[in-house]
């Protein structure tokens, strides 16, 4: 059944919704990357929570006008208006008072959400049964989505992606170095406004899929996940888009076979799974890689210190050092160097002498940064450079 859903075999509607969710995920991942890099992730949370009163009021208004309260474009328009008001409140509070942005976000988020819940409750008592769709905006529910909803998702995602593509340079500049961006003539105010506009669009069209409580996760988790795999902004954007897309796709597919489950939490959990894998297993910044590197590095430091001690005829005190060196056949159990140990020791000392010359010479600045007390200098310098360095060793201290 889930296999069918993943392979888009569950019928026309479910297929459309799944593809729409994937596109939303891509758009959220890409837009969220710049929000994350600009360190304004939580503003996204304020925007999403501020949509709720708008959804409720739009419903009331549409019913009062004699229409169908559940008409999605109307509800989303209401959400967008109230989210924009919420965003303006955050910016107004931050600028006009001494409140930090975090405090302003906390205040706006909770007040708008509380107000929204009150309205939803009133709606419930007012027109019992009719508001059935509205709580789907809290946690997302793709089950009842229509073809037109899916098309709205796809179009919005395409618009967001096109905007980010066009504005990638100012967005990157504003995130990395806002002062420089301003000084070179990009208006920071306008860049931030456009960025928040993009986030607002993603949030509003994502309401039905992920829900307002969890949309911030779809904005941020992909970017944080992508950061583990690369050191380049462009690559973070692409990987985040992919992570968001996979989350949306798989989440909606699972939700299609289990309609009782809200879609939002599933989408977010899929994204979290990808995050977890990255956190643990990514090669550069992952936890396991760091642990392994630290472990290896520690052993190499012990070995090196032991060899240098040997070369200078000093005793080795640390048990770990002795154990490691004994295991490598460099010393006997009583701490006396073997023949191999003596050779390795004099090589280590020569290496250290060469390194100290290189580090003292600014013309080797690039090579000098690779000094970690362990890397053999032959790995860093060319044979010619090495001969040059050796020519400067005045009194070889090789034992």
């Amino acid at each position, binding site marked *: 059944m889930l296999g069918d859903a993943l392979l888009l075999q569950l019928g026309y509607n479910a297929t459309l919704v799944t593809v729409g969710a994937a596109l939303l995920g891509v758009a959220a991942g890409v837009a969220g990357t710049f929000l994350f890099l600009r360190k304004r992730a939580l503003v996204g949370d304020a925007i999403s929570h501020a949509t709720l009163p708008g959804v409720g009021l739009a419903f009331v208004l549409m019913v009062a006008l004699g229409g169908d309260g559940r008409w999605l474009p109307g509800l989303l328009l209401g959400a967008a208006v109230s989210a924009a008001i919420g965003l303006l409140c955050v910016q107004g509070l931050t600028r006009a008072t001494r409140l930090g942005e975090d405090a302003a976000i906390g205040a706006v988020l909770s007040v708008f959400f509380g107000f929204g819940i009150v309205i939803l409750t009133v709606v419930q008592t007012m027109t019992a049964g009719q508001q059935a769709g509205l709580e789907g905006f809290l946690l997302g529910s793709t089950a009842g989505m229509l073809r037109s909803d899916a098309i709205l998702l796809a179009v919005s995602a395409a618009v967001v992606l096109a905007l980010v593509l066009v504005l990638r*340079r100012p967005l990157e500049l504003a995130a990395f170095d806002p002062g420089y961006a301003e*000084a070179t003539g990009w208006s920071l105010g306008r860049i931030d406004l456009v960025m928040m506009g993009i986030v607002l669009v993603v949030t509003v069209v994502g309401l039905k899929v992920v829900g307002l409580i969890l949309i911030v996760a779809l904005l941020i988790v992909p970017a944080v996940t992508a950061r583990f795999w*690369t050191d*380049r902004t462009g690559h973070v954007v692409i990987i985040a888009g992919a992570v968001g897309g996979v989350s949306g796709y798989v989440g909606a597919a699972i939700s299609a076979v289990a309609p009782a489950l809200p879609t939002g939490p599933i989408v977010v959990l899929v994204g979290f799974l990808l995050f977890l894998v990255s956190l643990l297993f990514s090669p550069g910044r992952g936890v396991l890689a760091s642990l392994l590197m630290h472990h290896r590095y520690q052993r190499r430091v012990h070995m090196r210190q032991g060899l240098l001690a040997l070369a200078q005829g000093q005793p080795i005190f640390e048990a770990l050092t002795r154990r490691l060196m004994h295991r490598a056949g460099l010393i006997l159990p009583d701490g006396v160097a073997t023949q191999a140990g003596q050779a390795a020791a004099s090589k280590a000392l020569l290496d250290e002498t060469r390194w100290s010359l290189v580090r003292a010479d600014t013309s080797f600045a690039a090579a000098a940064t690779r000094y970690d007390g362990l890397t053999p200098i032959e790995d860093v310098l060319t044979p010619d450079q090495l001969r040059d360095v050796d020519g400067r060793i005045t009194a070889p201290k090789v034992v």
Partner: protein
Amino acid sequence: MSLQNIHLVTDEAVAQAEAERTASPLAVRNLTVSYGQTPAIFSVDLTVRAGAMTAIVGPNGAGKSTLLKAALDVIKPLAGTVTVFGEPLAAMRDRIAYVPQRASVDWDFPTRVIDVVLMGLYRQLGLLGRVRSKHRAAAMGALDRVGMTDFATRQIGQLSGGQQQRVFLARALAQDADVYVLDEPFAGVDAATERAIIAVLKDLRDTGRTVLAVHHDLATVPDYFDDVVLLNTQVIAAGPVDDVFTEDNLQAAYGGRLTTARVDPESVAG
């Protein structure tokens, strides 16, 4: 402010000051910036001399960085005007390159050295212009001038403080501007970097560019700079180092906090 600084203003003097302002690569008039109710800088007049290296010095909290940022419209002033070669700043952005304080950015940002330098060309590239080999060559050339070509593809977080500062300078060099405005370019850098940066700045001046830098090391002011601005919320004195960098002016700028040990009397004209 001492009474000596107040003298009769003649029409000719006004006309001459106006002419200097129009010719100046960066002139600010009556610039005031305030955070809350206390002014960080108050009614600052400053006419930077073309083709010279000018230092802005003053105690902590004197408003040195604020003056630079307000002059470049990075922060909005309460009052005052800024002109670049006599034109409004907005029309002359391309002529100015800004080097912010190193500590103002997150160095764990996912970007490489060459990418940061290419940011100096973003204005020229526009929104969609492709980065072509000539742009890459310009960026590598800028890195070469600060001795950082070997680091082009490193992640910026792997750099030392001095290397980070050189990358920031390279980004400004890539802009190929007429005026270079630097905020504490020597703060927390190693001696080799300080030598490299001052060599680049002097080279800029010798090829007709103008350099304006916030500087914190009084001892090197006479060696490095042609002009100096002593700032403590207001301009205490401004002009050629030989005329302005005097014990009296420094006392006025720094108040009692300046001990004579901080200034080498030999290097101070007066």
